[in-house]
């Protein structure tokens, strides 16, 4: 009697979540693999199995590789800038004081406001008549650049908005990492005469190993999935010079109705993320601060 009651209880409590999850998450996931093998244009149900054709096309698609390149560029540049700034700021915050407390109170603001607000806001900062150029004119620059309209600068401008958006999160992460290093480790180092840059490169930086690993994984996921910022700020332009994987996918699916090919792009994007994540786990496979037994 009790066993039957238990089983009925388990089933009834799991059923709602499992049904919704199975229907809206698992089923579309399985279909994604299937769709990526179809030649399928337009809204008709007229689709045709073509095997690996979409993936062959993907390999030869210059725009795809160009957008992968832009993603990687953002990952590298924004990653280095973000990590450098957040490690520096985490150190500065340790000093505390009123300025430290104030920054602590506000640094997550960009992260909690909508990405849409961030994108629109930065679109207007970089507008030829916007806040940035207004400031440049005030200090005497007569011909400031057009930023988002300039093929050479558009991607960098999007990157700047990205760093503004994510920085607080990484400062918080590294500040917590610094806090987790016991104070007596630093005191011992000080007694041994290690301070400043030496202490940082020999002691602090290696001890931040686990935080660095988390930070890099998050950066990969964040940058490889960047969509709203680019889509709203530049639409991948000018001349695809800021196109990223997901804006290209969106265009293929919902502008050109190439649903099969777009799903293949989605699978490609997923594979790139997985490959990068595995690479990172490989690089960070061993904690350098713990000796091998």
């Amino acid at each position, binding site marked *: 009697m009790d066993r039957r009651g238990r089983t009925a209880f388990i089933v009834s409590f799991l059923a709602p979540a499992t049904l919704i*999850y199975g229907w809206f998450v698992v089923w579309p996931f399985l279909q994604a693999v299937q769709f990526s093998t179809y030649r399928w244009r337009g809204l008709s149900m007229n689709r045709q199995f073509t095997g690996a054709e979409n993936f062959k096309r993907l390999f030869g698609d210059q725009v795809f590789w160009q957008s992968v390149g832009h993603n990687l560029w953002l990952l590298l540049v924004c990653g280095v800038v973000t990590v450098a700034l957040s490690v520096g700021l985490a150190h500065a915050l340790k000093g505390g004081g009123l300025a430290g407390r104030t920054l602590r109170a506000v640094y997550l603001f960009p992260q*909690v406001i*909508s990405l849409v607000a961030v994108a629109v806001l930065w679109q207007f900062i970089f507008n030829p008549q916007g806040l940035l150029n207004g400031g440049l004119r005030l200090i005497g620059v007569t011909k400031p650049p057009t930023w988002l309209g300039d093929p050479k600068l558009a991607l960098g401008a999007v990157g700047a908005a990205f760093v503004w958006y994510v920085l607080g999160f990484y400062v918080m992460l590294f500040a917590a990492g610094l806090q987790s290093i016991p104070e007596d480790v630093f005191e011992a180092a000080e007694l041994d005469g290690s301070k400043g840059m030496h202490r940082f490169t020999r002691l602090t930086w290696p001890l931040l190993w686990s935080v660095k690993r988390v930070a890099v994984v998050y950066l990969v996921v964040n940058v490889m999935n960047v969509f709203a910022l680019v889509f709203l700020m530049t639409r991948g332009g000018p001349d695809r010079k800021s196109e990223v994987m997901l804006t290209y996918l969106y265009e293929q699916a919902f502008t050109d109705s190439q649903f099969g090919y777009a799903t293949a792009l989605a699978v490609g994007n997923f594979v790139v993320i997985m490959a990068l994540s595995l690479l990172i786990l490989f690089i960070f496979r061993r904690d350098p601060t713990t000796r091998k037994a």
Partner: protein
Amino acid sequence: MRKLIVTVVLVIFILVVLLPLLWVVWSSLKPGDRILGAPWQLPAMNDLRWSNYGKAWTEAGIGQSFWNSVVVTAASLVILLPISAMAAYVLAKYPFRGSKLLQTVFMGQMMFPVFLVIVPLFFLLKDLRLLDSLPGLVSVYVAYSLSFTIFVLGGFFQALPNELMEAAMIDGCSHSKTFWRVMLPLARPGLVVVGIFVGIGLWNEYSLALVLNNSPQNKTLPLGIPNLTMTQQYQSDWGALFAGLVIVMAPVLLVYWFFRDRIHEAMLAGAIKG
């Protein structure tokens, strides 16, 4: 000297964070054509254009989007929290054959980006006649918040001692009564944190809404705002847009301010465990 440099650096970054946000606020009170004409100019105190907010709310349709966002976010949480709590509780406290596997499957969604499934999802909703509707968006938001919510609540339930359950059962509570009367109330701090976290995320959500909901009467705020950048550019009157930006940002900043310590904790816990 060192202290001075640190303070200067900190003040610079405080400005970097706050200046763009303050710019939005002060611009929202300026005449629309002066926002890009003279971006650094503060609004004239005797000529604050509160009318920008009225224009955004009614003429530009931000009011409609605002209520859609409220309804979608609230409905998603009302459905999400109980069903995730139920599932998390059973997975944490009632091990059965296959429960570990089911748990792994539930975590799966956090491993892949939604864009992987966006095309199948679009057609699934189309077949269900839920495309471009608020109930459709709510279903998708619930489904794609389950993984995270079950993960966090599972941690909370795991931390509650089994003795509490057993005591309640001995007192004659059924399995489900034990959950609703004893265990769920004890997990309230967890529900609050997840609710705030997921709620902020859904209020801000853009990509899924962009693909799934298109007609003006079904747009949420994150869709309504960029819409204004299109409709307003021909009049180059940006007052309503900047007022709209304040309307989308203010509620989350307010919620964040009241719960910031818990949000910090939750973000760190999630990042370091995950």
